[in-house]
């Protein structure tokens, strides 16, 4: 998977490149609008991460050019301006998603993966990691043969973590996916939910599955 990063701020570009490469992507960096437009038009990428404010040519005109040339590479906008009009403008020009600076890298990674997944992935009815098994159809969670007594929201939370095993999920994303809460709540509400879920899923067992990634979010995975 090849990703083009068009970003004039060197530090941002460099950590994006490193982060993406460590997550298995190949990333090219263009430091101004003209280089970015040239690379986007001449090489083939799976995704373009595009800053709006760029020297030379701004992000909007780059995407407008691309779409005019019938190049349908997905575009993820990075912007420091989160006025609704700006977002709408970006999406109208054919961007697939946008992120407002400052953003969490985990968020960028999650959105990148979502865009690249392209179309619905077939979800199996039964998810499992190690000795934890979730039957989505029958709404049942079992660990090490013992049935777990979960509330519907806890079940939803656990299934989200399981579906995206190994992926760090931010608190914002969890709140959005499980509780349909769309604002960025700055309280530790998700933390409490997580604590309660862990009490049921992890505490009675020796091997812990749910892990906190400080300052980022949570991940469910089997760690040796």
């Amino acid at each position, binding site marked *: 998977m090849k990703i083009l990063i068009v970003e004039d701020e060197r530090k941002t570009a460099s950590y994006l490149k490193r982060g993406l490469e460590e997550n298995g992507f190949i990333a090219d960096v263009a430091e101004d609008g003209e280089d970015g437009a040239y690379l986007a038009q001449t090489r083939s990428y799976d995704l373009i991460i595009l800053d709006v404010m760029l020297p030379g040519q701004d992000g909007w005109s780059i995407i407008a050019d691309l779409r005019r040339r019938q190049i349908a590479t997905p575009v993820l906008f990075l912007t420091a301006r989160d006025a*609704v009009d700006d977002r709408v403008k970006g999406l109208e020009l054919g961007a697939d998603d946008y992120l407002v600076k*400052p953003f969490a890298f985990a968020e960028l990674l999650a959105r990148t993966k979502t865009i690249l997944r392209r179309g619905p992935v077939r979800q199996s009815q039964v998810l499992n990691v190690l000795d934890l098994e979730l039957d989505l159809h029958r709404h049942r969670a079992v660990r090490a043969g013992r049935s777990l007594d979960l509330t519907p929201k806890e079940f939803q939370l656990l299934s989200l973590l399981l579906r995206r095993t190994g992926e760090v999920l931010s608190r914002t994303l969890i709140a959005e996916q499980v509780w349909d809460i*769309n604002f*960025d709540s700055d309280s*530790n*509400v998700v933390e*409490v939910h997580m604590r309660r879920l862990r009490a049921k899923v992890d505490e009675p067992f020796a091997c812990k599955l749910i892990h906190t990634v*400080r*300052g980022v979010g949570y991940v469910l995975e089997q760690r040796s």
Partner: protein
Amino acid sequence: MSIAVRLTLWYALSAFTLIVVATGLLYWVLVNSMYQEDLRDLADNLNNALLLLPSSPTAPFEGLPEQRPSWAPPHQPEIYLRVLDAGAHTLTETPGMAQQLPPPTQPELAAITTSDGTKRDIVSPSGQPFLSLIVRIPGQSAAQQLRFMQVAMDREHDEYLLARYRERLWLVLAASLVLCSIGGYLIARRGMRPIEDIGRTAAHIRATTLHERIGTEGLPAELSGLAETFNEMLDRLEQSFRHVSQFSDDVAHELRTPINNLRGEIEVALGKPRSGEEYRDVLGSCLEECGRISRVIQTLLFLARSDTAIETLQREKVEIGKELRTVQNYYEAAAAEAGVELSVLPGETIHAEIDRTLFQQAVGNLISNSLAHTTTGGAVRLAARADHSRVTVSVDDTGCGIPAEHLPRVFERFYRIDQVRRSSAQNAGLGLAVVKSIATRHGGHVEIDSEVGHGTEVRLILPAST
């Protein structure tokens, strides 16, 4: 054109017009009365002459005035007298009269039928103005004996007087035009001076001298209103200015703390070699601080944008009760952990066109606030009701309450009841400001009631539709 110039012109023009009309009128009256005087004079002379006229046309006529003697005063106009028969032949006349005034023609005499007399203005061949009066001499029967008497008066002196008078009049008018203009200018300047004073005061008010005000004492009524309006504007500006600088102070403080933490932690971490685990711990902590900074910035931007109202709401039709339960669900675990009962009171189904995300945020902030101030065993209740076109959402807690003196200010940015700043990011003092801003952006408002020791109720009142 400046107002002063315009006013001057108007003053001068109207005053001057008035003077011209008045002098014109006076002149006309003068001319008229001089003429009437002459006419009366002439008639007197005529009557005197008639009395002296002998009945026989051939008898000598004693009443004939002499040529004006050289010692006669100049203002005494010269009188001429002439007697004519029906055939317009001169029977007798003042010596020299024929040169000055040719006798009237026969048809002219024939036209005179009454004894009242016919007056006429005549200009002599030498250009002198005369006033003449001709009458039929009464008391005659036979046509042959029909006689006429003509008296005439030289009016040159009158004309001379009037010409002198006119000359003076022009001088007076010219002088009054100049005086009117000067007077007008002075009046205009005097009238404009308070405006200039206001302008001068306003011109030197700067950010540092925002406390200065325009003096309203001694100003005319029209201008004192203007000056007061100016002063009110300055009050508002000063207040906004104070707000902005207070706000910047708060922002600086709010950001300084986490950035300081960040810096310190990193410096200490880099001070000596550490294990991977320790580094991870430091980085995690740094990330948390970054999250805190981001959130403060985001919230401040949100509030700043609300002030300028450039962002439009993403309104959609929402069922209030459902949204309340969504938010309640989200906070349920936190409430349970704090030992507080969080419930949504049952009520009618209410729909409203609002921005769903912002509504969730407002309710969320209120719940979060209530939970923070309610101890174990307490309760937080959410309720919604509709009346007319408004929706009222209330968040009611059994918490510690807010002292009355703080109530008017709790919705201000960074306002904290306990002035000791808490380190926790949740409590930047922006939560209620955000709630108020959300209400305002929906065209609604917030209300708060509180009793110390009993609890607080905050009501979010929004219009149900746009």
